[in-house]
Structure formats: structure tokens, C-alpha cells
């Protein structure tokens, strides 16, 4: 499993532009909102959790296409399908590498975005934690969609449509946790649910993704 993670990370580093694009997209989307809705501080502070989370979602949807595309194109995917390693493990490894490259940077950059929105200092922790728990879930669940839409023409947009209903609960919990904290209440409930979601997704989703890969490759 470690070898797959390392290999994917190396590949990603070689194609730095893809990685940077997703990150830049996140920053740009989040920066567009103040321009669109006006710079009223109270308004910005109120919408910040939602905007940041939606930007993270969109960035994730954008980068998902990369998850299997390269391997599909050069035939490595077929080898993985025939290989000895359980496909679920391979999928988990690839997803982990994908998250390290596309999700984790979002978690790290988010505080800077929050600064733009004049979010209270105390909320940074909750925001970062919610993203830390939530972005892996997005990658793991998104992988199912990426596998199902492998090689299709409508690709990216179709992937977004498929993955959107599955993403909505994560968005609600993630943004909700920060909003709870902003209102002075405890974000524990949402964060625990996010954590539970992460565990359940990490255990079950790889098998769905593996099945989807087989379906897409026949």
C-alpha cells in the first residue's frame, strides 16, 4: 500500500500544475464571493464557513477526475485490476495520495481564506478540524463517482452531478459545525458525525469504488 501512495505522490509532484490548479481554484472561488456580495464585514463573517466549505467541495469535484484518469490512459489500471493486491486496498491507497495532494492543502490554506473573511480567531480551529475530517470523506466518496465516470465524454460535469447528493451531508455537517461554534454553541455533535462518516466511508466506499472500476473497465 505504501508503494502505491508513494508512486501516486511522485506522479502528482511531477505534474505540479494539476495540483496547483485545484488549490488556486479553491482560493479564487473563495475570493470571488466578497466581490460578489459586497464587503460588509458582518455578512462576510456569517457566510465564511459556508463559502469556504463550498469552495472546498468544488475544488474536490474538480480534482477527482485526476484520480484514475492517468492510470486508465496508460494501462496501469488494467494491471491493478488483474494484480494480486486487493483492489479495495489499491483504491484506498490512491485515494489517500489524492487527498494528501488535493485535500490537505485546502485544510492548510483555509485559515488564510478565513482571515480574508475576518472570521473570529476562535473559529479557526473548528474550521480546520471540520475540513480535516471532511475533505478525506469527499475524496473517498468522490472516488466512487470518478470510477463510475471513467473515460466518459461528459466527464467532469456528470461526475459533479453524481457526487453532489453524496457530498451534501458532508457540507451541512462541516459548515454547520463552524456555524455552531460561531453562535457560541458546541460543534461537537457535527464533528463527531463527520468523524463517524469518515470511518464508515473509509471502510465501505473503497469496495464500491473497486466494483465501479471493474464495471468501467470491462
Amino acid at each position, binding site marked *: 500500500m505504501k508503494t502505491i501512495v508513494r508512486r501516486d505522490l511522485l506522479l502528482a509532484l511531477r505534474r505540479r500544475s494539476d495540483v496547483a490548479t485545484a488549490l488556486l481554484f479553491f482560493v479564487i472561488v473563495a475570493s470571488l464571493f466578497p466581490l460578489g456580495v459586497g464587503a460588509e464585514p458582518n455578512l462576510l463573517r456569517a457566510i465564511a464557513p459556508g463559502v469556504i466549505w463550498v469552495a472546498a467541495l468544488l475544488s474536490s469535484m474538480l480534482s477527482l477526475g485526476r484520480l484514475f484518469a492517468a492510470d486508465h490512459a496508460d494501462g496501469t489500471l488494467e494491471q491493478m485490476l488483474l494484480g494480486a493486491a486487493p483492489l479495495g486496498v489499491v483504491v484506498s491507497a490512491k485515494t489517500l495520495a489524492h487527498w494528501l495532494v488535493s485535500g490537505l492543502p485546502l485544510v492548510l490554506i483555509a485559515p488564510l481564506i478565513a482571515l480574508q473573511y475576518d472570521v473570529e480567531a476562535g473559529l479557526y480551529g473548528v474550521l480546520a478540524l471540520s475540513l480535516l475530517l471532511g475533505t478525506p470523506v469527499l475524496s473517498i466518496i468522490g472516488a*466512487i463517482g470518478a470510477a*463510475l*465516470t471513467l473515460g*466518459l*465524454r*461528459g466527464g467532469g460535469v*456528470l461526475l459533479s*452531478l*453524481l457526487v*453532489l*447528493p*453524496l457530498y*451534501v*451531508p458532508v457540507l*451541512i455537517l462541516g459548515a454547520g459545525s463552524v456555524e455552531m461554534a460561531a453562535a457560541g454553541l458546541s460543534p461537537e455533535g457535527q464533528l463527531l458525525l463527520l468523524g463517524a462518516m469518515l470511518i464508515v466511508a473509509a471502510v465501505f466506499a473503497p469496495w*464500491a469504488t473497486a*466494483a*465501479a472500476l471493474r*464495471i*468501467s473497465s*470491462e
Partner: protein
Amino acid sequence: MTTQGIRWFWYASPQTFFPLAGKIARVCAVLAVIFALAGLYVGFLVAPTDAQQGEAYRIIYIHVPAAWMSMFVYVVMAVWAAAGLALNTRLSFMMVRALAPTGALFTFIALWTGAFWGRPTWGTYWVWGDTRLMTELILLFLYFGVMALQAAIDERRRADRAGALLAIVGVVNIPLIYYSVKWWNTLHQGASVSFTKAPSMAATMFTGMILMALAFWTYSIAVAMVRLRCEIVETQ
């Protein structure tokens, strides 16, 4: 026992099921009209006016049955999807395709009638925080996703199997819709109909709802059967 086993796989062939589907469609279409007329009669002319909500509550006779159908059709669709993936029977995948549009329609109807019921009764067409509304909206997108995915894949076998997998993955949403009212009490009113306790509404209202539910159910079967026959002919 063996005879029944043979019969099942015999009917699993689309060719053989074709005439039976037609018969079922005709019978259910007639039943749907009868149930609907009965349900509307009971709902409008027999059941009393609600003390708090006035006549507006009468929307319940289509809202609740439509919501029930939206969930029920999805589960049935997911079962056929699982059957298709497990047994590799063409008919199973065709049933998925036949059911999806009707399920999506009932989901939309549930959302629409819910909004029109919500506005006069609780002051608003829609609330973004309510879990039941959210999960029902998610259900609509799930239906669309299955249909879009199948439409986007040219190769029939892959389209069938991909759509089926997506349908099964999405099934986790159904318990969420069902229990969302119990777990989170925001805008949508608590469940007043349960399968174990006696319903806490007037008996006539309950009868009206059940009759409309039966109407929608037989309607769904009729429409799905006709669609299925079209699928069978088209994939010759």
C-alpha cells in the same frame, strides 16, 4: 418448489415477461384510477376539516403518498439493481431504467406539494436547514444521477451496471429521510403515522391517505410496466 424455481427464471427472460407486463399494466392502470377516485372522495368529501390548518391540510392526501412512493420506488429500484449485479439478468437492469423516472417524479411532487403545504401552514415554501427537506432533495438528485449516468454511457452493459451500482450506493439516503424527522425536529412536522402504533389522526384522513398511496402505487407499476415493454422492444 422446483417448478416455481424454473418459472422464475423463465419469467426473468424479457421476451417471456413482455405479455405479462402488458397485462399488469392494464390492470394496475384501472386500479389506479379507482383508488384515486376513492381516495379523493374520502379526502375531500368525507374527512373533516382540520382544526388548526383549515382546508390547506388536504394537500396531505398527495404529499404524504408521493413522499412514500419516492422512497419506496427507490428501494425497489435498488433491489432490482442489486439483483441485476448479482444474477446478471437483463430484465433486472431494465426494471431499474423503468422505475427511475417515475420515482424522480414522485420525489419532485413530494417536494412541490410540501412547499405548497408549508407556505400557508408554517409560513414558508422552503427551509434550507431542515433535514427531511434536504434528504428528499438529495433523493431527487440521486434519481437524476442514475438516469444521467445511464444516458451518458453508450455501451449498454456498462451503463446498466454503473447505474445499478450508483442506485445501490445511494440507498443509504432512504433511512436518513425516514428517520430524519425523528432525529432532528426542525421545520417538518413529526411523524404521525407509524406502522406499530395507531395513527394519531382522524381515521377518515388516514383512509384517504392510504387510498391515495395505493393509487400512486398502482400507477407506478402501470407506468413502469409500459416503460419496461418499451425497453424490451428497443433493446432487440
